């Protein structure tokens, strides 16, 4: 089996047309978009966005995400304390859904991308089949972390009962949104084909040393 790179070909990321790479970047003959054979500086960009996401994730959990005013008294809740309230009320399925979407998914995404970048960089125990599946999953999960942001947005809009009760969004919502968007950009910057390139390089080097 040959890869497109070995044959001097490149796949257009937008229209999936196989192009012969005369220049780098190359203009796709089909959709006329510009692209590189591999995402440019993929690892650096992924790492940078990932660190930004991790930094934004800290205030996202420390600041209140929602403030409920009833009769003029404000009650602040962070993401975690909001989940705690659901548990207190016995609404376990909802608690699990929010916990998964707002804590587990962002963390898995951030950690997962760090691991992938590390694996491509060092090539330690690299299993491209497994790791590209992980990447695919991370990309799929991304948007679901927006759940809590949407919930707060809806509550702010629906619960508008004047002095009796109203809901306001807390500063954490901005940080949390940033976390989600940064991880999505980080996942987009990562080029899963690098996993296979690295493996191929290792195998070739292995074969060479055996030959000698």
């Amino acid at each position: 089996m040959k890869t497109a790179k070995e044959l001097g070909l490149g796949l257009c990321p937008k229209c999936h047309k196989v192009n012969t790479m005369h220049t780098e970047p190359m203009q796709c003959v089909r959709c006329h978009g510009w692209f590189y054979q591999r995402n440019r500086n993929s690892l650096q960009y992924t790492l940078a966005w990932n660190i930004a996401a991790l930094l934004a994730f800290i205030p996202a959990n420390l600041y209140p995400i929602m403030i409920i005013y009833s009769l003029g008294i404000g009650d602040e809740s962070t993401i975690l304390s909001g989940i705690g309230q659901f548990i207190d009320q016995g609404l376990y399925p909802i608690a699990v859904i929010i916990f998964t979407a707002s804590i587990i998914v962002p963390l898995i995404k951030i950690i997962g991308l760090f691991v992938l970048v590390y694996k491509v960089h060092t090539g330690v125990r690299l299993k491209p089949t497994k790791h590209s599946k992980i990447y695919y999953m991370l990309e799929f999960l991304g948007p679901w972390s927006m759940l809590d942001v949407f919930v707060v947005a809806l509550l702010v809009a629906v619960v508008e009962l004047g002095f009796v009760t109203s809901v306001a969004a807390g500063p954490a919502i901005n940080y949390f949104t940033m976390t989600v968007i940064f991880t999505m950009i980080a996942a987009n910057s990562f080029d899963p084909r690098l996993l296979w390139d690295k493996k191929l390089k290792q195998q070739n080097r292995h074969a060479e040393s055996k030959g000698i």
Partner: protein
Amino acid sequence: MNQLSNNHDIVACHLCDAVFDKPQLKQGQSAKCHRCGSTLVERKVDSINRSFYWSIAGIVLLIPAILLPIMGVTLAKQYHNASLLDCILVLIDRGFFMIATLVFLFAIAVPIVRLFGAFYIAISFKYQRLSSSMLTFFRAYHHLGHWAMLNVFMLGIIVSMYKLIDDTELSVNLGLLSLILWLICTTMASITLDQDYIWETLEQEFTHEDS
């Protein structure tokens, strides 16, 4: 033009870069990559027609989905309800501009653009009115896919209902039904659209003109 014909009968996997001969597929078949197992190419059944009807249904539902109230709450004899649009207006009113923008983009703007995009593409193919601007257009359409989050918003509605049901009287309105149907229509309109087929047809159409 020689280079172009050279690469006509091969495909490469977008996840692992392996090169294969282009498989000849019938409608409804898909080919998987031998190396990593991801879907290589897919031929969808009756793609243009299906996408056309789903997008028409979506466009019809667009107005009620956005303007009709989704749900309302009653507390201490006060009643208030909100539609998707109210949601954004209230957020702007209270000064949460970033969230208002994002909810607008992910839950309204991107799905609407994708819906009209699918409609425009389907109708152009159905009535053979292809122009070269379609290339750029379809590229932009393809790009937006990641950022359509109407399904996440839907789950958000369900969660907030659970949150409200405990201490208020919650009423579900017609807007929710239209929103669910709208979500189904926008999703189906983009799922049924066959990207490989569209790109190939566009390519054939416009390379003929060039040469």
